[in-house]
């Protein structure tokens, strides 16, 4: 009996020592977590600007002084420089009034808060211009406020009620309506019920044997989507692909960081909602798609999936066309 007890004690000590040491999975996971913390996104470095003559780099744009502003709140106005020519498309950046004449403008920080939606926007999966005629006021001039209301009405048909929309804008001539992050099927149709608005990284559960077998062998693919509707006079479709793709955490926080209405909380000098939606303005729909799967540490944008690791197989079958995604979500403007 004594021998058995002694042996049991020895086994307990050995077992405790084994339990304290890292196994291969924990070590690999710890290393993976450290790697993912060090590189919080898997984005490639930002693409070089396509027009080097006017935009030497994204952060210090000289084409537009308003390009890298923090948007949406008047408290950020201190970081914004005002150009001498409003609505000018090709002004060079003017130094702030407090700067000495010889000093060059201070480099602008693109965003103080990485969760804010910036102008120019992060790189989307796809862009499509929306027919302006669907957004114009038939009775006269159209303001940004009216355009925003028409966009919101069209989005409401797709299930995006007001609480699922966030508004961002710069000082005077660009605004964006961002939809809440949602779970969708590969063809763009949103999932049903509460599952649609589940922005967590929790995996879905199988509801029948076919799903069980599919998840058991192939893993669970979860697709997330954000729409961004940008009204701008400064950019064309190809201009949206200069920045890096957003990471999932950033996209998840856009809803809470944005405002509930255009112009909400803004100061009296920046009446963004009264800006006229003139001929030079266009409205673009931007599509952001993310995917989560057991082979990935975190959800990532589908355009940064690694070909080397064959993670790009996760984007097979996903509709990347903005028009199809909008159509499959039942969004309709102009009615």
């Amino acid at each position, binding site marked *: 009996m004594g021998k058995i007890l002694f042996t049991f004690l020895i086994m307990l000590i050995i077992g405790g020592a084994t339990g304290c040491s890292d196994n291969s999975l924990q070590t690999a996971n710890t290393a993976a977590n450290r790697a993912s913390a060090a590189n919080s996104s898997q984005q490639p470095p930002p693409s070089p600007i396509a027009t080097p003559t006017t935009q030497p780099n994204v952060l210090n744009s000289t084409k537009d002084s308003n390009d890298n502003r923090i948007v949406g709140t008047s408290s950020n106005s201190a970081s914004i420089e005002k150009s001498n020519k409003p609505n000018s498309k090709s002004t060079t950046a003017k130094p702030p009034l407090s700067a000495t004449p010889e000093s060059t403008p201070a480099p602008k920080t693109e965003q103080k808060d990485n969760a804010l939606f910036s102008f120019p926007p992060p790189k989307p999966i796809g862009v499509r211009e929306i027919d302006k005629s669907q957004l114009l006021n038939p009775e006269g001039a159209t303001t940004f406020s009216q355009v925003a209301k028409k966009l919101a009405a069209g989005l409401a048909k797709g299930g995006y009620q007001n609480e699922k929309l966030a508004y961002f804008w710069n000082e005077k001539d660009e605004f964006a309506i961002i939809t809440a992050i949602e779970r969708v099927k590969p063809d763009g149709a949103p999932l049903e019920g509460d599952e649609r608005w589940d922005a967590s990284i929790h995996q879905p559960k199988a509801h029948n044997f076919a799903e069980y077998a599919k998840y058991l062998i*192939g893993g669970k693919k979860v697709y997330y989507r954000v729409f961004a509707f940008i009204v701008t006079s400064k950019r064309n479709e190809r201009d949206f692909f200069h920045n890096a793709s957003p990471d999932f955490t950033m996209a998840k926080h856009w809803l809470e960081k944005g405002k509930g209405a255009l112009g909400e909380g803004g100061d009296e000098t920046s009446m963004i909602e009264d800006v006229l939606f003139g001929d030079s303005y266009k409205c673009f729909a931007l599509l952001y798609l993310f995917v989560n*799967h057991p082979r990935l540490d975190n959800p990532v944008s589908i355009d940064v999936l690694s070909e080397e690791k064959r993670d790009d197989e996760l984007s097979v079958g996903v509709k990347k066309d903005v028009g199809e995604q909008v159509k499959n979500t039942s969004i309709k403007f102009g009615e």
Partner: protein
Amino acid sequence: MLDVYRKRLLTIWCVGFLVPFLLILLQYFGGKYGDKFGEALGWLTALTLSTILLMFGVMVSNKTTPLDETLLNLPDAQLDDQQKQVKAALAAKNSHEKFVFQMAAAASVIYLLIINLAFFAEPVVSYKPQELMRDSKVWLALFDSFLSLLIGYFFGKS
């Protein structure tokens, strides 16, 4: 009976290892783990292969000579006092071994069930496979030492 119990325990462990191993192979071809395939396989082998190899090693290198248990089949009337004592000792030993075997088998089944559940329950829970593997280690640690003692009883003696 020692040989019989050893073979049964080895069978339980081999089945408990081979089922998830084959599943991991299927999942590898299904692209479930990507380059994390090694993590999943490493987790399984770390928890099971050392015990299985120990069992194999003992069985191959340590042949047991079965005790002559014919006395157990003879009625007491045909035995003298000494033979009755030997018979009683043999019966007690067999009973003791059977009890320990039942405990070892039950503990092995539960341990291997937890390992298998980390793979087979994953489609019906909200967690990734890696999270389940990590969390199940807490439960497996409860059985580690106990199981080592019981397995050692059968494979540690000649």
